[in-house]
């Protein structure tokens, strides 16, 4: 006999989807219980992008992989606030073309561009989304300078940050979910249960009424509810639905932005270990975008490991090195499959031939930016990669590149329960109710019909607000 809870609405997950949903529902007077698998970790309690953070706030310690050729490493937050607590906080609205593609391709009702952009306005106000008021980090400035020297389009991506103690990039304080929407939800009466995992929902003829959970000590917990809104992210939302006996298109359309990386060495100190560059190069967007990554010495060593015998001497110069990435809009798709006997799902992803070509082209162009920015040496992350010192070496890079030899990774995962009124392509209706059920909803990145070509969390939060408001209206 374990612990038991009752509520109007059970929300599974507390990240960019779950936290805004909880705030809207609780402020509307509903009895809301938010269940989060990970712990509550206050901002500032852990060094950003460190191994300790991966241990405490990332799912599986950050060691999650979509199998394929090549396999794609991905990361997910697993803590109160989800990915918003651990990512770079970069914020970009989806383009009008993206919204139109989703609206038309998936038959999404009530999805006018103007309404959606008004939701983005609201998110930006709630999260203090802004550009850096003062100096940028040296690594960010280098990326900007390289793009400018080539005459390539580039800009600064705003972040959910405030700068109460100075104007420079490194003084920013992240306005993640534990500082914004979750406190709002709690103030309005929502309960948040951390360190507790939802194992499955009990669904009878399309109606869910109970959830079976496990607490931090392994004890059983049950929750009875009138409605459930699953916001566990693009991997674990479909996995939970599948474990609960719901199938159809759920988990079939995983979309990501695959990225390849390089490290670049300059003639002076550029390394900032606990922050990321805010500039991005958009000359080839949405097919290709270039940006900067976290670059503490461990991550630089990681970037060099694929060609360690060639590149290892560079590690002693880590203060002069920063890591950058090229991200692509992929035409490939992946799949999430819950397997009997395993807590974690099997995740697979298949890059198309075009994707592999674009990754190679992206890495070569990013290397061009680095050389134009004054890099002395560039270290691409793939097996047998050459050290690039000049434009002549670029040809060698292109000749040797193979996506299957590269360390491909992503942090943007979506589209595993796409929304829309066309059941041929969607797994949930236009407002996130899972087809075949009357009270099981999804409200996170899983609903985005495909990868937006930009950081997706603006889209996730705007969709979450939209659907949560619709849910409240329907209850009235």
């Amino acid at each position, binding site marked *: 006999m374990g612990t038991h809870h009752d509520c109007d609405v059970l929300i599974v997950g507390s990240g960019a989807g779950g936290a805004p949903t909880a705030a809207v529902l609780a402020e509307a007077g509903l009895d809301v219980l938010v269940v989060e698998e990970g712990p509550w970790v206050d901002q500032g309690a852990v060094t950003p992008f460190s*191994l300790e953070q991966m241990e405490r706030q990332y799912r599986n310690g950050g060691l999650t992989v979509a199998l394929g050729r090549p396999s794609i490493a991905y990361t997910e937050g697993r803590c109160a606030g989800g990915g918003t607590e651990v990512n770079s906080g970069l914020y970009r609205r989806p383009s009008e073309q993206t919204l139109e593609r989703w609206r038309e391709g998936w038959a999404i009702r009530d999805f006018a561009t103007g309404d959606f952009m008004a939701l983005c306005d609201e998110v930006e106000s709630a999260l203090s989304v802004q550009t850096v008021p003062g100096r940028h980090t040296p690594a960010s400035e280098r990326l900007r300078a390289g793009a400018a020297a080539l005459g390539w389009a580039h800009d600064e991506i705003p972040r959910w940050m405030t700068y109460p103690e100075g104007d420079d990039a490194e003084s920013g304080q992240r306005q993640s979910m534990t500082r914004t929407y979750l406190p709002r939800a709690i103030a309005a009466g929502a309960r948040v249960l951390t360190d507790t995992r939802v194992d499955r929902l009990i669904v009878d003829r399309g109606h869910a009424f109970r959830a079976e959970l496990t607490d931090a000590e392994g004890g059983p917990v049950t929750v009875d509810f009138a409605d459930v809104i699953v916001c566990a992210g693009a991997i674990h939302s479909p996995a939970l639905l599948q474990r609960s006996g719901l199938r159809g298109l759920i988990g079939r359309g995983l979309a990501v932005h695959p990225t390849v990386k390089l490290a670049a060495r300059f003639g002076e100190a550029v390394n900032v270990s606990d922050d990321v560059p805010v500039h991005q190069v958009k000359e080839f967007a949405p097919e290709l975008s270039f940006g900067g990554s976290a670059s503490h010495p*461990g991550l630089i*060593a990681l970037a*060099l490991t694929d060609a*360690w015998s060639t590149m*290892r*001497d560079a*590690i002693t110069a880590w203060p002069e090195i920063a890591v950058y990435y090229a991200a692509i809009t992929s035409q490939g798709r992946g799949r999430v499959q819950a397997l009997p006997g*395993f807590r974690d*799902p099997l995740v697979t992803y298949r890059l198309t031939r075009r994707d592999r070509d674009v990754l190679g082209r992206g890495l070569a162009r990013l290397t061009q930016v680095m050389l134009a920015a004054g890099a002395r040496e560039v270290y691409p992350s793939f097996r047998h990669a050459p050290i690039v010192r000049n434009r002549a070496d670029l040809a060698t890079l292109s000749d040797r590149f193979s996506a299957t030899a590269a360390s491909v990774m992503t942090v943007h995962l979506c589209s595993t329960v796409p929304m829309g009124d066309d059941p041929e392509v969607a797994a949930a209706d236009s407002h996130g109710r899972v087809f075949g059920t009357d009270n099981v909803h999804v409200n996170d990145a899983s609903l985005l019909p495909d990868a937006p070509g930009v950081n997706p969390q603006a889209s996730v939060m705007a969709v979450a607000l939209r659907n949560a408001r619709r849910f409240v209206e329907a209850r009235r």
Partner: protein
Amino acid sequence: MRTALDPDGPFGRFAERLLMLELPDLPDDRRASTVAFVSHRAHQVPGPLRAGVTLLSVATGVAERVVEPDRVVAFLRSTELPLVGELARMVRSLAFAYVWETWPSTTPTGGAG
């Protein structure tokens, strides 16, 4: 319960030999700490992948009884076979990230710097 992924199991022994080859000057205490870290993280890998890593580690342990252990490590270091090649890559990635985050002045061969 002991598993193949423990520091003194086949996975840990493979990680130790790999580090002796790739970071030969890493002091013994640091190597032991690194192997413990890599083993700990291997236990955190998602279940379906952990099953694969365990299987590969057991196969490595069996192969070491038949073939010279260093030859097994040399093969796994250089193979580009799908999935099989990921074992050395995973160990190397975790170990190198740990070594340089923990001791940033480490030399390229693992010396204390």
